[in-house]
């Protein structure tokens, strides 16, 4: 039931987490293209077609952005704020996928317009389960906002 065309943007600086997330996605048969941005700038470049991703077709935006909060250069909250502040990405579904379950992180994320907040469990099996449900929901069940044409 997955849409292979749609892209998942994974913003994750930790290579272990990146590997485990990709593994979990794969194990759960989520075969969408996963673009990994290793810091906030890179993520924004991808979304806005700037920097290293200059010239990218920004009308083709990810099905969902999996955004870690703790990131080098520009952190997850700032990335989220800019996504929401930019007209072209204003409606972009963003799921916070982070280790923190601090209240203020949760609250500020929702305040900035996060669509969902998921804490990465330490237990990999739980992690797998979380990724599975996440993929099912956001890539299959959820209807993203229409692309601007």
């Amino acid at each position, binding site marked *: 039931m997955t849409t292979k065309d749609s892209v998942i943007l994974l913003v994750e600086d930790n290579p*272990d987490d990146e590997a*485990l997330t990709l593994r979990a996605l794969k194990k759960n048969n989520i075969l969408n293209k996963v673009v990994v941005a290793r810091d906030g700038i890179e993520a924004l470049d991808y979304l806005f077609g700037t920097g290293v991703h200059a010239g990218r077709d920004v009308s083709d935006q990810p099905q969902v952005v999996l955004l870690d909060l703790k990131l080098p250069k520009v952190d997850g909250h700032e990335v989220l704020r800019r996504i929401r502040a930019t007209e072209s990405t204003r409606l972009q579904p963003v799921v916070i996928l982070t*280790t923190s379950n*601090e209240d203020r992180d949760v609250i500020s994320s929702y305040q900035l317009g996060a669509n969902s907040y998921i804490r*990465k469990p330490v237990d990999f099996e739980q992690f797998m389960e979380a990724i599975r449900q996440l993929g099912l929901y956001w890539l299959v069940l959820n209807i993203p906002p229409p692309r601007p044409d």
Partner: protein
Amino acid sequence: MQVPNPGSNATGNDNLALTAAEFRRRFRWLIFYTWNIPPIFGLGFILLIGVLTPAQILGILTTPLEPAYILGWLAFALWFLPRCMRPLADWLDSKTGSSPEQAVRAVRRFPLIFWATFLIYLVVAPASVIVAAEIYTDFVATPYDWFRIELVALIVSIIVGLPIFFLTFDLFGQALGELELKRPIITIKTKVFLIGALVPLLIDTMLVQYYWTRTGYFTFETFGVWLLLEALAIGGSLIFAHSFGQSLGPLQRLIGAPRPLPEEHLSALRPRSTDELGLLTADFRNLLDELQLQNEILELNNRLLRTVGGVEDTGAALTVVVDLCKQALGADQAFLIVHDEVTGDFVGVAQTGDEFRPDGHWRVHADEPSLTKWVFEQGQTIAVEDMANDPRVSARVRASFSTRSSISTLIRRDGQKFGVLMAIQREQPRAYGSREIVLIESLAREAALALQTQQLRQARAQAEIALRDSEQRLVQQQEALIRLAEYQVYAASDIDRVLQAVTETVAAVIGVQRASVWRINHDRDEIICLDLFERDTQRHSQDAMLSGTDYPAYFTALKENRLIIANNAMTASETREFSQTYLVPQGIGAMLDAPIHRAGRAIGVLCSEHVDGQRHWKTDEANFSNSVADFVSLCLELHDHHLTANELAHHREHLEELVLSRTAELETVNRELEAFSYSVSHDLRAPLRAIDGFARALSEDYADRLDDNGQDYLNRVRAGTQRMGILIDDMLQLSRVGRAELRPVEVYLSSVARDIVTELALADPGRQVEVEISPNLSARGDPRLLRVMLTNLLDNAWKYTCKTQQARIEFRQVEIGGEQVYSVHDNGVGFDMQYADKLFGAFQRLHGAEFPGTGIGLATVTRIITRHGGRVWAEAELGKGATFFFTLACDPDTKVPHITYGN
């Protein structure tokens, strides 16, 4: 029967006033004698001369006629004569019963009445005798007998009647003693004549009759001798009366003379005999002279007092004294010489004919002999008739004053020798008598008195002026104080301005060159000048300093809060130590230093310094200084308060800064802690996840290459990481519980507990646990934290009952010691109470691996309950379960202050 003695009574007992009763009694006795003695005497004499025989006499007396005659007359006299004298008795009785004039008139009338009655009685008496004799005896009267008996009766009446009559008048005299008679009632001359001439004459007549009767001898010669003797008696008594009249003459002229006595009466008052009357006259004359002198002196004093009372100053008063002295003594000139106490000289300050000169018209050296010096030293009045050869006077003095006679006396004032009053005669020598001495001495005394009075008057006038000045000054001072008080508003902000006003005011009002305010330093060993105002330059200066070690006496006085009044600053005990260093250089002569004190402790001094000589500080000036000092004290206190308030404000600001910085620090720490927690939650968990994830990946992807042992190890790796993850979460929770802001609301603990148990049961569906939760338990607190707390407790209860058959958990509220306490009870494994105190510490566990746990749960519970102002404790027994009790304060915010730092 009492026999009165009229004679002695009449002359003695002068002090006793005669009462009316006594008078009447004595008067009646006198009448009684008067009417009884003559018949006895007469009959006796008739018997003696043989006119009647004893038998005839006896016959007469035993017949009723003669006794009836005598007793009848006696009764009449005893009734009639007292009646005539009633005005006198009445006057004596009450002094108002009859007027003195009536009494005197009765006395004047008495001789006539007396003699008329008496003579009729005795002239008729012989007739009664003769008639009785003829009736009752054989006696036949011849005309010759009639003559002889009548003669005897007459003579007896006079010889006996006269003395009794005089005795009666003595009685009247005694009775009338207090009355002033204008003229005598019976003159002494009359008395003398009657007693001296008439009585001998009658006695002679009786003698002649007696001898004639006895001898029958009576010739012309006898008659001639009788006549001669009678003439001699009358002549003698006339001479005696004349002599007596001469003695009495001068005094007699005074009777009824006009008052005051005219001069001719006084000059006539000279003794004209050598008897008692003569002496009495001389004494009387002296007495009058003395009286006149006293009068003169009195008048002199009067004039002196009147005149001196009207003059302005001492000099004028002394001039009046010498003028009066000259007049009173009829002197050519009078002087008043005072003794100069410094040089000892005698200075003629006042003399008649000249103005008063305090430095003297002339001066006699202390060592030069002079009468003045003599009088002054001896203290006696000296009168010198002829100065020419008097050794007490030096030739120079004698020559310069050309004095013939002088009289001088000492003047004492307040008991001290003051000077000499002197009157002199230049042309004619004069012999001074006691009159002059008395006059000049009296004048000197009165002069001294007048001077004193005059000085008192002056002093009073000065005092009045001083009082007026003082009142004026008081008004000024009051006004100045009121003006100063207006400066109080500057005390806090601009104390210098206040102090300048103070020093200027003090300098102006007290009138000193220098006024200053000094303050005692903190160590109380120095005073520092806050402000000094110098009037002549109109300049203020500050910061001078005086050390207590240099001026110990002054500092002692200052610290004892003493007002220092130094009229002479160079000698006053508190200020003389300033002499060389301060007083002389500044030219200060007097100091008035009022202590400025606060709560009885000297904190400074207000100095008024008088430049140029000494000064007598007045009480009101001292009072004013004190008042100003009090004002300064008040202002300094206000100023100090202001400083303190400023300092406090500064401290408060500083404190706020401190709090802010501390808060900032704490916030930093908190942020760091949060960052740490954040890091822990992110950065510790991330590798754990990696370990767990890759271990899983390993066991999945490379299962075929791992034997059972390898799988087991990988499982242990994963179990370790998961356990580590739980630990980290619990720690984060503990940390969060400590930091989180409390948001107290009403929390329904019963329903929270039910939710938790439901979750526990869901998570562990294999367990059969009987749970009893009291309904409607609620408390005020932070719902999230209370939930965490209850979760921990119930989770523990759930966990430790897992080995128990029929596990049971109770959550209820009990009352312990009047306090509402919540309890969570289980019937699980329990624990040993000796480790109970370890239970609530972090990472403290009483059980091993058989019961999973991190040892952080109860630490979290403790922290939450503590933050809610409550307590938590546990009771347990090994194998028999445990009960956890906790309390929650109603309002955690107020019971336990807790600074929270939120966003």
